[in-house]
């Protein structure tokens, strides 16, 4: 045997050794192993290092958005997170409850800012505070909490045990332990629905602080924990209000109001075969008027498939009063009439859990009716450390005009400002006040017949080939739903002119509500203003660019409104007017009026 042959022989064997080796290495890298068991392969080690560096960078960035809240005199407090550059902070209601109108808020930049209360959701335990003094606060945005899964890494940032006497927030790392959790109300308020459970340490003082996914997405607002026999410290079971819930409420909370939660006007029960069916329904409700009946099966709610009564109740808790959702039902087959099962979808305005007065009473009566939140992480009553910085000594006081008290509002000033902003955005250059005369709107209906609508302060009227109607100023507007079948088109347009001429402040009792989804004219989010004038309640919906796109007029609170959609704005008489007006009552067909022109009437013309 020659040496060469030997070499050849070695070569012919080596590929198999190589393959075996490569397989072993590849398996080693991709299958991973216990961190302490076997040495890590170089590739994974590099990945781990990169991931670790990324984690540190992410936390470093997000620490800047966290807020540590201190109550008056440095007693009590909690955490929060900045969600916009102009300093809006989301926190817990139970954190600000004891803080009054103004509070001191520290951030990782080492600065102490004044904060003013904006809006509260006492049922969902959420509150909004605005930080003062800057318009370039570092902030973060809410992500979709429905993408979170148990086992995902996450971290909480906040002010546990009010440790942030150096203004620096604390980070605790953990995993998501559960999603879509339900926690019963503590007392009569503070119900946590569809919340996220985590084992990241949530201690007293963490309340109101952010829960971030490992990639830095804001997924929740930490608020409570399961505390039983081991005192009020973390036992690895904390709960965060889902970011999706907070997002639904955000614009409502920024309106300065005391915000309520939504409910439906029916109850459901799960039967033996797992179907969720209506077992009670209010006959004066919108959902009943639209056709839902006893024993109908609830299939979907706001795009979520319903699998159980519990899951439905849990889901319902994440929407504010007045939210509008599609609901899908299935009518079971009826052997008596031979009707086949039928699936149908309704679009429903959700009513409130409480009436406003009831909600205020529940908050005010907290000492009488609520044992103050036994399960909530409230900082222990400890005397502030001696070396505490100037929180208690702080003498700088914010401008007291930043807060306006009014029943039903956490801070009425924000409602006024929002309402004014919205109206200004809509009116822009248009000065309707100059049009303070009677208007004659000449239109064509779908049959190409001429319709003349006269709008003025007292005796608005409607004339078609068949009929002439004049509003009687001596009678309640609510009692004049003319023309027939419209649900009150003339009254709605009469009030529309009044709103344009007078603006929301003079129109009547006008409240900025927040944004809600609506289907008309297109499915989108609309900013919502609610007003009462001349004994009639109206909703005013503005599209995302701020244009008034529909008006809903309710002759009675529980009745179906006359819906009027305003489209295709064009300049008329130097002002922007809709040239297409659609209207309908209840679930009736849409009627349309094409506006030919608008004439201004002198006093004598009527």
């Amino acid at each position, binding site marked *: 045997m020659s040496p060469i042959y030997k070499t050849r022989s070695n070569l012919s064997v080596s590929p198999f050794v190589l393959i075996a080796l490569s397989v072993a290495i590849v398996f080693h890298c991709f299958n*991973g192993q*216990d961190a302490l*068991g076997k040495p890590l392969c170089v590739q994974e080690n590099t990945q781990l290092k990169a991931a670790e560096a990324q984690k540190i960078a992410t936390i470093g960035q997000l620490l800047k958005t966290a807020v540590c809240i201190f109550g008056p005199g440095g007693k009590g407090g909690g955490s929060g997170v900045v969600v916009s550059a102009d300093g809006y902070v989301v926190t817990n209601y139970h954190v600000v409850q004891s803080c009054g109108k103004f509070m001191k808020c520290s951030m990782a930049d080492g600065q102490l800012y004044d904060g003013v209360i904006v809006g509260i959701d006492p049922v969902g335990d959420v509150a909004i505070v605005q930080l003062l003094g800057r318009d370039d606060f570092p902030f973060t945005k809410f992500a979709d909490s429905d993408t979170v899964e148990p*086992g995902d890494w996450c971290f909480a940032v906040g002010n546990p045990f009010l440790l942030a006497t150096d203004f620096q927030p604390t980070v605790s790392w953990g995993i998501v332990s559960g999603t*879509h959790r339900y926690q019963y109300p503590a007392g009569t308020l503070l119900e946590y629905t569809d919340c996220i459970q985590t084992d990241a340490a949530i201690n007293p003082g963490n309340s109101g602080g952010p829960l971030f996914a490992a*990639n830095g997405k804001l997924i929740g607002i930490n608020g409570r924990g*399961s505390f039983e026999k081991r005192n009020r410290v973390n036992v690895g079971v904390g709960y965060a209000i889902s970011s999706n819930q907070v997002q639904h409420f955000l614009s409502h909370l920024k309106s300065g109001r005391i915000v309520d939660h939504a409910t439906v006007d029916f109850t459901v029960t799960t039967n033996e075969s797992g179907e969720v069916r209506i077992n009670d329904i209010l006959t004066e409700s919108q959902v009943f008027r639209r056709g839902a009946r006893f024993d109908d099966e609830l299939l979907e709610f706001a795009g979520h498939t319903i699998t159980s009564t*519990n899951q439905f109740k849990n889901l319902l808790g994440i929407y504010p009063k007045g939210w509008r959702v599609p609901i899908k039902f299935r009518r079971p087959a009826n052997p008596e009439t031979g009707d086949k099962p039928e699936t149908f979808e309704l679009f429903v305005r959700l009513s409130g859990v409480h009436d406003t007065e009831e909600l205020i009473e529940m908050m005010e009566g907290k000492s009488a009716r609520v044992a103050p939140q036994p399960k909530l992480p409230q900082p222990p009553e400890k005397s502030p450390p001696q070396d505490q910085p100037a929180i208690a000594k702080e003498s700088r006081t914010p401008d007291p005009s930043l807060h306006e008290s009014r029943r039903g509002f956490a801070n009425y000033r924000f409602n006024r400002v929002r309402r004014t902003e919205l109206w200004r955005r809509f009116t822009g250059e248009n000065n309707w006040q100059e049009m303070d005369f009677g208007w004659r709107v000449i239109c064509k209906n779908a049959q190409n017949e001429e319709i003349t609508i006269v709008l003025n302060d007292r005796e608005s009227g409607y004339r078609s080939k068949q009929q002439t109607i004049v509003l009687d100023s001596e009678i309640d507007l609510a009692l004049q739903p003319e023309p027939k079948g419209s649900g009150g088109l003339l009254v709605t347009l009469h009030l529309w002119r009044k709103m344009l001429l007078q603006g929301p402040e003079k129109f009547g009792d006008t409240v900025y509500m927040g944004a809600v989804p609506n289907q008309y004219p297109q499915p989108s989010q609309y900013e919502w203003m609610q007003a009462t004038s001349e004994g009639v309640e109206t909703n005013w919906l503005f599209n995302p660019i701020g244009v008034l796109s529909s008006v809903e007029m309710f002759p009675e609170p529980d009745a179906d409104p006359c819906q009027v959609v305003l489209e295709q704005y064009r300049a008329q008489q130097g002002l922007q007017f809709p040239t297409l007006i659609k209207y309908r009552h209840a679930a009736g067909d849409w009627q349309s009026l094409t506006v030919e022109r608008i004439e201004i009437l002198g006093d004598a013309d009527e």
Partner: protein
Amino acid sequence: MSNRRMRLVTTLALAILCFMDARAGLNAQDERASSPLNQYSSVVRSAQSKIVKINGGGGFRGLESYQSGFLISDDGLVLTSWSYVLDADAIYVTLDDGTRNEGKLVGYDPQLEIAVLKIDATAVDHFNLDTAVLPRVGSRVLALSNLFRVATGDEPVSVQRGFVSAVTNLSARKGAFESVYQGPVFLIDAITNNPGASGGVIINREGRLIGMIGKEVKDSSLGTWLNFGIPIETINQSVQEIRDGKMIVQREQNQRKPTEPMTLELLGVVLVPDVVNQTPPFIDRIVADSAADKAGLAPDDLLISIDGQLTPGTRDVRSLLESIDRDATFQLMIRRGKSFETIQLKL
């Protein structure tokens, strides 16, 4: 085959192998999971599907009426903690999909404080005790249980993460009493042993079973709450014995009864009065110079089993004695303080 061709084939084979393996690695994980930050959700989901929520006795004076358990066979055997929760007329076992079954107590090991229940089920996802791995100090673990009864119906149980911080023997107390179980445990640095958590599982990050979450107990010297699991290795044999028909609760006696059976009176044993549905069979009094006295039985001894059959209540003691001839020798297991003793008895 020439050398050159061989080399070419080798290179190609290597390239394909590497490529395939890398592709397989990528395909198996979606975008979320391919991030080293989110790697547990599939392991967690798989484990959750094998865990059950148990509701039974208790529910008063700070005693929770619920605990956790997990499926260990495809025909619905459930392993859990032996506790007062199982001391109920009806034990309800809720599976991950929300279906609720009545659980029948098959048997239990009073020393290890484990119990096996049976529900009517077929082809259910379950953990295999025989493929469990050993706890190792420093290894990362996930704990899954229905602590605080956070989950109900079809809601998945909770998951927590931590590290094994020690492998040791338990030295703990439950209230004023020493904990019954004093065997091997592994301690965890996370707060896993919460109300309702006992009977849950501890798995490694590949989803392999390591142990069962123990009860809520405090360290006997420091008084701090302990968080621990009992290694599957420690309990597997006992579970197997229960499955083999030892240490089981047999309420219906099919054997022919002897005409002259054994009785407590003949033995000279007076048990505590039978006051509740299942009064633990503690010895109240021993008649002097009786067979029981000579065998060394004493007041406050708790009867655990007779000839390997469990006696959870005084009625079980009486009914088991009825099947023993008064001339026979039989074996009695008792608990005295924290120790277990086996005693031969004969009239």
